């Protein structure tokens, strides 16, 4: 199973979505992977996000997560800049 190629769909919002020009980026992973790895892959795929890189927030299954959170293809993953509701 460890060589099965899987897809993690990362939802983007607000300025991140505008810069990427799309609402979802699909990242290929070989096995359950840390957010830190996904971040690297996302920035390679969408270099325009580089200026926001340090500020981007990540959420898995509707909760904020840190860089060491491990995710698989069944998780709902999202990435976005600081929030400004209210």
């Amino acid at each position: 199973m460890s060589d099965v190629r899987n897809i993690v769909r990362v939802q983007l919002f607000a300025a991140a979505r505008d810069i990427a020009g799309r609402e979802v980026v699909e990242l290929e992973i070989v096995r359950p992977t840390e957010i830190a790895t996904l971040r690297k892959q996302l920035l390679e795929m969408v270099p325009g996000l580089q200026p926001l890189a340090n500020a981007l927030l990540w959420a898995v299954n509707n909760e904020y997560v840190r860089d060491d959170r491990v995710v698989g293809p069944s998780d709902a993953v999202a990435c976005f800049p600081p929030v400004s509701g209210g």
Partner: protein
Amino acid sequence: MIELTEQAIDFHNLTESVRDNAAGAVVLFLGTVREFTGGVQTAWLGYEAYPEMARASMAQLENEVRAKFTVTKVAISHRFGKLELGDVSVAIAVSSPHRAQAFDAGRWLIDTLKERVPIWKKEHYSDGREEWQHPGLPTETLCKDNDR
């Protein structure tokens, strides 16, 4: 009561929903679209939400405010989409036996909502510029040419 809506927020109904014979105080907070910020004129605001997480996050706020304060009932509604000047973007209603707790709980809710709930606003200025509001990010990373 938690609500994420594209319609005008019915804050009268929201306030009625927290009234209770056990409460001696109700506090309602409304966030409204202000025309001028530091001399710059807003034409309208666009609010975008990550809907599933925004609802979960607002429900979590309700749980936390109940743990931190003595509150009787809580209701939170946030609007998204296009908002005109003066429109209500967010409404928070809290009831409590005593007024100090109602004020403190209401203030904690709006402060924490603004830090945490995944909703973003984009300013559309009267001079045609538009700009995502992303606290902590330098403006130049957020401004896009309108024709891009």
